[in-house]
């Protein structure tokens, strides 16, 4: 039977961040993830923003952790080679009603200790963002709201954890937890094995209520809240330079428009409460509502320049609120629930908080003397100078073979993505790591080539190459 000190359920943002943090200690850590790739479900589809927490409910754990997380990202992004930019955000008011809300929003930010929030006049706002509706009356600037590559953030945390000795069991679903004498002892998996663990951390995101039910701690349930988004072409004529947030209403936080770290424009999300945790369909109605709302802020946005639409699910806890808990009657178990749209931001501080909680509860933890805090990312060919490109191709010819022309991704990068720590095994996993297929032709040109590269590099027949999870095989086999 396998044995580990700490077992983390889920390799989404929170699970991967906890693994990254625990990897600094002399502990045997294992992450069990149901998907074939790290990155989770809900961590993959979001607005790719590192929030400041200015609008969190003051005094809550969520406020504490999101506010604490934001300043951590400069160093994390540098250490782990993650595309990250402090663009800042603005909250423009277009109606008198919205304008009157600004002082209260600013006060809330102050309560959340986001002291750098500033009032801006209409003139200042239009100078910053010429595409704004000229009827803007004034607004707020939140300088530290930032954009990040959300896939690379989670992948980098997991990769660095794995490079520092954390084990990842991918494609493995936890189906039960064995408890005896008031303590967790092991998890059961769908592979029919049991893994003994001194500590078990429930970082299962959308499914954390199911995991909690295995130990009888499901005093809440989770429902998915769908958010649909548009991604616009990098060449769209109407762009914004920073995150443009709507003034929230009583019922909704509204739909934003912002640049992505790779130069596209992101518009969305909707907020639709669902029951089905696998329903990631986009709908005509949802997309239409985004168009209507965002045009109020940026009237010139050209939504026909969309290259793709997607939807993500937020894990809505009922009752609401971020909750991280250990139980007196269940030693060794940590339950994390209520991680919602701020979870990507909060993951790194949640990790610190959880690890501190474990140590305070008596977990023996000594720092490693050989921990490597750095990760080398995959070279980004698109952003290199001609000299850098020539040098790279001279070293490895595969960097001279462009596979994805829209995003200028080379065979060398794809092979790196496949063969590195926790390497890509599917088309989507390649795409998240190097952006092949993320451009305006959406893989029309490169998908046939990437399928062949994956098959060749992994030594598998083409019919086993998947888009993502088992069942998503891309083709049915050779013709002849």
């Amino acid at each position: 039977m396998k044995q580990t000190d700490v077992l983390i359920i889920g390799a989404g943002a929170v699970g991967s961040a906890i693994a990254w943090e625990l990897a600094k200690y002399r502990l045997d850590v294992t992450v069990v993830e149901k998907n074939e790739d790290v990155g989770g479900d809900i961590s993959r589809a979001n607005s790719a923003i590192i929030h400041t927490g200015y609008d969190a409910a003051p005094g809550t754990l969520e406020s504490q952790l999101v506010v604490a997380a934001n300043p951590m990202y400069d160093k994390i992004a540098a250490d782990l080679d993650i595309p990250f930019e402090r663009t800042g955000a603005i909250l423009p008011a277009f109606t008198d009603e919205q304008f009157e809300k600004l002082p209260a929003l600013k006060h809330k930010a102050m309560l959340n200790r986001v002291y750098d929030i500033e009032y801006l006049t209409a003139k200042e706002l239009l100078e910053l963002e010429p595409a704004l509706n000229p009827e803007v009356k004034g607004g707020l600037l939140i300088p530290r709201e930032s954009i990040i590559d959300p896939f690379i953030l989670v992948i980098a945390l997991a990769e660095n954890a794995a490079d520092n000795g954390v084990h990842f069991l991918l494609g493995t679903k936890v189906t039960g937890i064995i408890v005896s004498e008031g303590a967790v002892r092991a998890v059961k998996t769908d592979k029919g094995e049991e893994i003994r663990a001194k500590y078990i951390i429930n970082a299962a995101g959308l499914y954390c209520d199911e995991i909690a039910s295995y130990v009888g701690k499901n005093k809440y349930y989770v429902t998915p809240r769908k958010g649909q988004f548009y991604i616009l072409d990098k060449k769209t004529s109407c762009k914004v330079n920073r995150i443009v947030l709507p003034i929230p209403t009583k019922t909704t936080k509204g739909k934003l428009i912002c640049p992505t770290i790779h130069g596209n424009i992101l518009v969305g999300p909707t907020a639709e409460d669902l029951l089905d945790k696998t329903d990631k369909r986009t709908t005509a109605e949802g997309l239409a509502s985004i168009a209507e709302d965002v045009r109020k802020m940026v009237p010139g946005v050209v939504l026909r320049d969309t290259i793709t639409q997607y939807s993500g699910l937020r894990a809505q806890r009922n009752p609401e609120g971020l909750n991280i808990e250990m139980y007196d009657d269940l030693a060794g178990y940590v339950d994390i629930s209520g991680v919602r749209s701020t979870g990507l931001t909060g993951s790194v501080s949640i990790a610190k908080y959880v690890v501190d909680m474990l140590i305070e509860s008596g977990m023996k933890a000594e720092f490693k003397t050989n921990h490597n805090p750095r990760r080398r990312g995959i070279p980004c060919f698109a952003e290199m100078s001609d000299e850098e490109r020539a040098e790279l191709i001279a070293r490895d010819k595969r960097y001279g073979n462009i596979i994805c022309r829209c995003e200028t991704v080379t065979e060398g990068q794809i092979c790196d993505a496949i063969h590195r720590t926790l390497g890509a095994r599917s088309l989507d996993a390649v795409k998240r790591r190097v952006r092949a297929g993320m451009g305006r032709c959406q893989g029309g040109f490169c998908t046939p080539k990437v399928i062949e590269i994956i098959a060749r590099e992994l030594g598998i027949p083409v019919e086993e190459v998947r888009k993502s999870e088992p069942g998503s095989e891309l083709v049915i086999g050779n013709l002849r």
Partner: protein
Amino acid sequence: MEEKIYDVVIVGGGPAGLAAAIGAKEAGAGDVIIIERDSSLGGILEQCIHPGFGLKYFGEELTGPEYARRFIQKAKECGVEYKLGTMVLSIGEHSVTGINPTDGVITIRGRSIVLAMGCRERTRGALMTPGARPAGIYTAGAAQRLINRQNIMVGKRIVILGSGDIGMIMARRLTLEGAEVLAVVEIMNYTTGLIRNRVQCLEDFGIPLLLSHTVVEIKGNNRVEGVVVAEVDPATRKPIPGTEKLYECDTLLISCGLIPENELTREFGIKLHPVTGGPEVNQFMQTEVEYIFACGNVVHVNDLVDNVTEESLTAGRSAARYARGELKKPEQEIRVTPGNNVRYVCPQRLYPGAPATLFFRVTEPAKKVTLSVLADSKPVITKKLATVNPGEMQRVDLSAEALSGVSTVLVEVR
């Protein structure tokens, strides 16, 4: 070492680039080079193994590779140089820069440059087809590449969205390979591809063609499990509630139009025409930058390769002429504008006093119409046409006399 300067540098080795290279050599150009990203010349023709090419140009029915081969051989015979496996990343002043595994980053200089990058396919994302995002959604051309070049079969039960030529051709190809094509779904009330393909690719095999229909939802979390098809109001093209029908399939092919591949053109600062998506050209296929020429699908999407060949030969000849000091920009150009029921006309500008062939597409299908070309509001050509379809490009030839001393040309169909 003295840096070599080519007379003509051609970006793209498909039908347009090959014909441009031959045209340039025929017109007396010295060094001519084609830069091609694929491992062989021929471009998209290499995967178009179906017949129907060359009916106009050669008067015989060839397949894509056969059509390409004639031009590849001719280009080689007349001493055209070429670099394969080389992706052009940017265009500069009289130069193009690309990369390949052996040379690394290379910049090639030319007195003239010909853009012949072809086009790409409109995607599901651009169409905003709602639903899930499973495996099994391909553009028709990507599926064609997989099947015809890579020996890879995409699926068993197929729905095709869009009645573009590649979609209909793939319907036949997949049927012959044993797949079941459940339907070709077209939002317009006419096929957007050629009638020949509707007859020989769909009707021959009893494949249902659903006009005024569209896919309103894609189902399946992992692989495509089905698509919901609904009828649309022909006027608004909006789905009619209550007409939805589920087609259980494992694959959705998309054949909803082609878009000229002009990223390099745009990056260089050449404006793109809002309707064609390509650079504006004159009858010499010369763009607004006098040493840059363009031809084939990069200018406007053609339905017949024969037309591409014709205008690309012109582009090549013109590029050769420019390289030896001719074809400087005239002081005054003639504007060509589309009139009634004309979606666009190409070329959009004309050199005065030189003959020109105008290619144009109509906006709506119509029967028994009159084509008129007006120069400064005076009719210079009036022609009866039995049928016009947006899917079939029309052409009209203008003489040098008709274009002398005029400043505008209008093309209309009534």
